[in-house]
């Protein structure tokens, strides 16, 4: 036992030392690259100064000397942009609620994530640094989502983003349309789907009211209900709903329910969002979208078009792209922004949709999403323009720590594939045979 305590002490001391030397004391300046800060104009030859996992300064190169002890890294000819944010990912072999019913607000997705999944290696190879990992869309409410930083991790805790109130950052995943309409005990129609969701929220409201009414009198307080506890967070706007929805009328149903119960929502996929873009804008609700190489594959996606991003941009809707990984490959996520531009999106909004817009949607824009002083040092080193097919992600940094380096053979393997790179296991995709995500 004594030996254990000594070991623990040693670890604590060691950890303390390593943190202070690596993250706090040393300053690193990345010099000479074109910097695309996203917020603010591009800098043709810039300097990015990082200390303690945070960005200290972003500016053009000039004659100023760096502080003593600054490690200067020449990145001339490269392009630096913020770490890429994916607002909808299924990496980690994740499953949320099971087949026992359509509503699982008590299920936490982070209890299901394998941090050793090769998907995470591929994600950093694509320049991703922050993900919203979600359960699937086979339920009206399949569980809680978790926002993670792609730090090197031994357990999921190593990836968490902690909120100021001590909670683990994350949202709530909901879905409507055909994915969540299944055999019993699932709903069979859209009307039934909406009524089940309304009943769920009404019950959560009543539960909340009972707690309030009980006040300090513990004897009057209802028994703990894990699901309703999280639904109260949703009702109070402290947990955002990430809502899978494709068809124009399903989108309107989400907006209607959000209005009725006052929850905050992000619309995901919105294959027919272009038909109701003004209504979405009017509601002030953001969208998280993806571009698939062809429409269809399921009835609800028959009208999916490349220009959804452009149409939402014109309507003034805050829009981020997502991979929906495994639906699309995180390694090629930048392609999504470029295809958005192909179909009429502005370059600026397309790049924002990979970074700051996603940060806003995840309500983390005070920490990530742009290269600005005091934000987390999450950034990507590219060898060319982010929207070119020929451009490669060379390095990815999370909080100042390099988590991907294409020149490393093992990282290269994960960036392009090859023997030992992939997973034998099929990804979890609800309803794949018929319909899904």
């Amino acid at each position, binding site marked *: 036992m004594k030996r254990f305590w000594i070991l623990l002490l040693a670890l604590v001391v060691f950890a303390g030392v390593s943190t202070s030397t690596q993250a706090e004391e040393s300053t690193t300046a990345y010099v000479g690259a074109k910097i695309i800060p996203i917020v603010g104009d591009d800098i043709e030859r810039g300097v990015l100064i990082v200390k303690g996992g945070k960005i200290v300064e972003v500016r053009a190169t000039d004659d100023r000397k760096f502080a003593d002890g600054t490690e200067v890294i020449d990145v001339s000819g490269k392009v630096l942009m913020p770490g890429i944010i994916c607002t909808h990912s299924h990496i980690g072999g994740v499953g949320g609620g099971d087949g026992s019913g359509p509503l699982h607000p008590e299920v936490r997705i982070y209890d299901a994530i394998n941090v050793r999944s090769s998907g995470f290696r591929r994600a950093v190879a694509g320049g991703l640094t922050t993900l919203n990992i979600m359960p699937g869309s086979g339920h009206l409410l399949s569980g809680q989502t978790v926002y993670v930083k792609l730090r090197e991790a031994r357990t999921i805790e190593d990836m968490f983003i902690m909120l100021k109130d001590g909670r683990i950052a994350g949202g709530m995943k909901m879905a409507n349309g055909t994915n969540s309409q299944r055999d019993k005990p699932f709903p069979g129609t859209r009307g039934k789907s909406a009524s089940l969701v309304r009943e769920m929220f009404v019950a959560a409201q009543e539960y909340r009211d009972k707690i309030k009414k009980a006040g300090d009198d513990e004897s009057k307080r209802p028994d703990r209900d894990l699901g309703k506890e999280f639904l109260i967070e949703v009702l109070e706007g402290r947990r955002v709903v990430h809502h899978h929805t494709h068809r124009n009328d399903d989108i309107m149903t989400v907006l209607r329910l959000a209005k009725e119960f006052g929850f905050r929502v992000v619309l995901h996929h919105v294959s027919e969002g272009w038909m109701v873009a003004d209504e979405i804008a009017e509601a002030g609700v953001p969208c998280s979208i993806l571009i698939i190489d062809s429409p269809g594959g399921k009835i609800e996606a028959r009208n999916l078009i490349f220009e959804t991003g452009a149409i939402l941009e014109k309507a003034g809707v805050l829009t981020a792209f997502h991979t929906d990984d495994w639906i699309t490959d995180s390694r090629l996520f930048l392609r999504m922004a470029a295809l958005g531009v192909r179909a*009429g999106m502005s370059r600026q909004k397309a790049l924002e949709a990979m970074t700051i817009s996603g940060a806003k949607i995840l309500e983390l824009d005070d920490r990530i999403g742009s290269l600005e002083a005091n934000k987390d040092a999450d950034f990507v080193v590219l060898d060319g323009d982010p929207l070119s097919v*020929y451009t490669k992600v060379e390095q990815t940094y999370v909080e100042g720590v390099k988590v991907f380096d294409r020149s490393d053979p093992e990282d290269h393997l994960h960036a392009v594939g090859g023997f030992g790179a*992939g997973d034998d296991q099929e990804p979890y995709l609800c309803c794949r045979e018929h319909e899904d995500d």
Partner: protein
Amino acid sequence: MNRFLHGILVLALTALVTVDAIAADVAVRAKKLYTMEGDPITNGVVVIRDGKIAAVGQAASVNIPKDAKVFDAEIVTPGLVDAHATVGLTGILNQKQDQDQLEHSDPIQPQLRAIDAYNAHDPLVEWVRQFGVTTVNTGHAPGELISGQTMIIKTRGNTVEDGLIRETATVAVTLAKSARKGGDKSPGTRGKMMSMLREAFVQTQAYMRKRDSKDPEKKADLDFKKEILASVLRKEVPLMVTADRANDIANALRLAKEFDFQLILDGAAESHLMIDEIKAAGVPVILHPTMARYYGDLQNASMETATTLRDAGILVAMQSGFEDYVPKTRVVLFEAAIAAANGLGFEGALRTITIDAAKILDIDDRVGSIAVGKDGDLALYDGDPFEYTSHCVGVLIDGQFEPGETYKQID
């Protein structure tokens, strides 16, 4: 964007005129013309007469006929050839009623013709065409031991007959997990797959002898299944074997050696582990889409495999492949782009969706390059076709214009 749409409009109007005057010559002027028959031509011109290429060369050396309908583009390539697709059989909705790529009643059904299952009006045919794809090898999908036939068709026409290049292009065989069954159904294992294929060919050999018999008593009755397998054994139709794992590729090569048929390896995710064997067998590869999902049989797939194969001197084509989910069809232009960016380079990648695809499918006398006498199939782009932000502004199929990408107008 507006200028782009304006360009589309002009092209579209021109096209209407073209349809009215079918006999008129068509000329295409390209700032850069990739003929795939030598170096690209700066300021190139292609003249199409009666649907065939009548002249090609530098602007200074090619006369554009006076009445010709003229199209201009930054970059012009041969109409793209998708070496293996399922468009027309795998409909856009992905519902039972529009999925005709796999018939599960029997694992061995080489008699199933693609022409009987093709919907020329499925929106995904037009979808791939708008990006420059003018020819597809499409048909029965991987997923049964012998799932059926594929055909080669142009992506234009009212009926399957209109665009058909070859009715039976390949017989599709699957040596992959997707064709192995559970429970008491066969084939359940790799060993059983191979034994069933060997039996089918041995029985076909016996059938061929009996069909040739002069003695009416001994002459075998016509058997659709064996007829088509006989054409494989006579090397009239190649066997396109989908095999991704190295051991499945080895099985395909072994089978081809035993029965001496013409083999095309399909998928071939682990072909990078089997370079020497594939090269020794002289077999071409229609590689899995570079953006396929890398799990299961494809867990060791690589975006660099096309480069590895090309560098070894193996003929390689790109495919859109079969997808049972989304995207319901991939676009071979996009798949080749990823290969271009991962070592294959621009022209190397373009070969995999033009001339090399045509060679593997044995249709290079008609399509795959821009040369006098070949079909008037061209793809027109406003920039590097592989760049994500470029557009296909139109295609010509047998000299007939079809629009390229059109996007809803955004002011």
